[in-house]
């Protein structure tokens, strides 16, 4: 079992791992069918150290913040290690946000350094938001074409100091990363994650899903996401395993990577898992009837033999034609970021491909519960990880209440937001805002949310406040965005939708012209952030003395309407 108790920081644990596993492969990077890089831990260190030295030479010092906005690739991890080595705080941002959203978070985080890719910088450098983020004084850009105008940035590849950088120690209580769980439009929620949060989470997760030299993890979820940062960087690196990056997420190349690189683990969001299921199901449906019957029989046998625990060797032999396209080495698919439907989980398990279903929040340091596969349960999100105290508070007669968590992996708070922090962490317990119940076997089951937000199948957390600005100056008396399930609670974690509540001007009606206006504004949002429908309320929205909408009271008013008739799809 992995022991990180002697380490005070991510940087210190990684530093030792780089020495210990010097000759093992740590990174493979491929662009479609072309392999671009294959690095050992020694080579990784040799690339990171000059960057750490150059950062230090440039005045980057203990506690300074450096942001990474990159797709999944080797330079992401090399840069992150250099930042930790130099004693910095990492701010990983989502490369899929709009440039102005990224500048807003860069400003909020107080990052001094930005490390990004040329295609992203091309958009970022000309965005209006740049002017306000004066805190960003150094920009490093990877893969820039020669002689390209970098608009004040420097090529990452040339940013190298000479000589040995000084390793800057940190303590467990120091902040390691600021990870944004939401807040591109409202109040940014920058989770301050400490070194201890990561060290403890790493030990807990690898006790159930271990890494070792030779294991290959396919990194598809964005590395800025808490899951991939842990299982696609810190976890495998502390254990000498390898991470495989693909520069494209086209399904055909992802499928090819499984067999080409003999993948052991992969993390997926439910949307991708469902897509895989669809593809497999279509393949099965095309089989001639005799072969189909044989396959069904093999699946039934596998199902019976793996009832109490997975038996990988057996499943691979029984269902060879299913396992071969996955490379024959796949141990587990980790699914996270959003809720996965039980039938999808069961589909894969019956084929002998265990899916590590779990439940977590960025604020909790990634995972709170995971399925330990002993036995596999598709109807729950598993049991609490070692070190996690989970309790249900304010439970109703049916035992369902808010899930709250206490552990060493809980963030220290939201950056610059003491009020939000006090709401989220009460007496050391993180209030998740999710509704759940434990069953007799100690498995957690989830039953919807208490909070006003949705999580998409792509694992994106969307808060209504973050998208309201796009509807500003809409020709109506007032408007407000809500998660539909917040108004009309559903005991479900899937199919969540956002709605726009409208109060029209006196005499105004909901015309086709107004619908088109809303639709046009909606399409300016990234596709996963869009509202799904409109609800009309013919009364004034309740407001505070400072005229802010009282969302809770308004939600209560809207809840009196019948969802089926009131919800007008856009």
């Amino acid at each position, binding site marked *: 079992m992995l022991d990180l108790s002697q380490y005070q920081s991510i940087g210190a644990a990684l530093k030792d791992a780089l020495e210990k596993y010097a000759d093992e492969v740590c990174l493979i990077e491929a662009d*479609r069918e072309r392999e671009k890089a294959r690095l050992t831990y020694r080579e990784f260190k040799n690339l990171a150290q000059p960057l750490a030295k150059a950062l230090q030479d440039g005045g980057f010092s203990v506690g300074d913040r450096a942001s990474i906005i990159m797709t999944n690739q080797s330079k992401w991890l090399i840069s992150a290690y250099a930042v930790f080595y130099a004693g910095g705080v990492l701010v990983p941002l989502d490369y899929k946000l709009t440039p102005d959203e990224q500048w807003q978070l860069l400003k909020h985080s107080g990052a001094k350094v930005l490390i990004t890719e040329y295609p992203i910088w091309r958009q970022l450098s000309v965005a209006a938001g740049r002017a306000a983020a004066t805190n960003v004084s150094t920009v490093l850009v990877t893969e820039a074409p020669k002689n390209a105008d970098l608009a004040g940035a420097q090529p990452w590849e040339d940013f190298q100091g000479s000589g040995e950088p000084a390793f800057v120690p940190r303590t467990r209580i120091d902040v390691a990363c600021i990870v944004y769980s939401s807040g591109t439009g409202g109040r940014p929620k920058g989770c301050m994650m400490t070194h201890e949060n990561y060290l403890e989470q790493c030990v807990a997760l690898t006790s159930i899903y271990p890494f070792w030299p030779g294991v290959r993890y396919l990194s598809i979820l964005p590395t800025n996401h808490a899951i991939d940062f842990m299982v696609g960087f810190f976890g495998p690196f502390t254990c000498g395993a390898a991470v495989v990056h693909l520069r494209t997420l086209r399904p055909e190349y992802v499928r090819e990577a499984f067999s080409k690189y003999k993948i052991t683990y992969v993390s997926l969001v439910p949307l991708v898992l469902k897509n895989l299921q669809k593809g497999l199901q279509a393949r099965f449906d095309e089989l001639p009837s005799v072969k189909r019957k044989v396959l069904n029989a093999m699946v039934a046998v596998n199902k019976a033999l793996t009832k109490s625990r997975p038996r990988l060797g057996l499943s691979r032999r029984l269902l060879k034609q299913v396992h071969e396209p996955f490379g024959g080495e796949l141990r587990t698919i980790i699914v996270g970021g959003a809720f996965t439907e039980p039938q999808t989980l069961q589909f894969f398990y019956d084929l002998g491909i265990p899916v590590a279903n779990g439940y977590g929040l960025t604020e909790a340091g990634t995972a709170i519960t995971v399925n330990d596969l002993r036995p596999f349960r598709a109807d729950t999100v598993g049991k609490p990880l070692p070190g996690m105290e989970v309790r249900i508070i304010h439970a109703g007669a049916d035992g369902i209440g808010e899930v709250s968590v206490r552990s060493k992996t809980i963030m220290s708070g939201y950056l610059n937001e003491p009020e939000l922090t006090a709401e989220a962490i009460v007496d050391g317990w993180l209030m998740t805002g999710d509704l759940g119940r434990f069953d007799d076997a100690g498995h957690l089951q989830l039953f919807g949310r208490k909070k006003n937000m949705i999580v998409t199948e792509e694992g994106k957390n969307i808060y209504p406040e973050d998208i309201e600005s796009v509807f500003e100056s809409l020709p109506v008396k007032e408007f407000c965005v809500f998660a539909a399930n917040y108004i009309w609670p559903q005991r479900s974690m899937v199919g969540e939708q956002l709605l726009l509540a409208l109060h029209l001007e006196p005499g105004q009606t909901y015309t086709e012209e107004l619908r088109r206006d809303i639709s046009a504004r909606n399409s300016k949002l990234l596709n996963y952030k869009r509202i799904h429908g409109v609800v009309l309320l013919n009364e004034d929205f309740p407001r505070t003395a400072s005229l802010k909408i009282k969302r809770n009271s308004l939600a209560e008013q809207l809840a009196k309407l019948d969802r089926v008739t009131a919800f007008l799809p856009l």
Partner: protein
Amino acid sequence: MRTLEQTTQEVLDLASKHFNVPVGSLAPEDDFFKKLGIDSLQTLEMLSRLENHFGVELPDYEVQGVSDFRTLASRIQSRL
């Protein structure tokens, strides 16, 4: 060499064929996520079809944030 209009029309034709919708029902300014009711993964599949048709390679970052056929066609056009 195709004009942007020709490229756009071919993109519309291919998208309608791939997703089985009437050719005339798609317009250059349409948001393909909404009009075709597709998700980001299905968009990537459509891109692979388009790459094969036009014989170009479109890196994922080139289509990041693109949601209408006209912009998509212009990204393809710049690589023809």
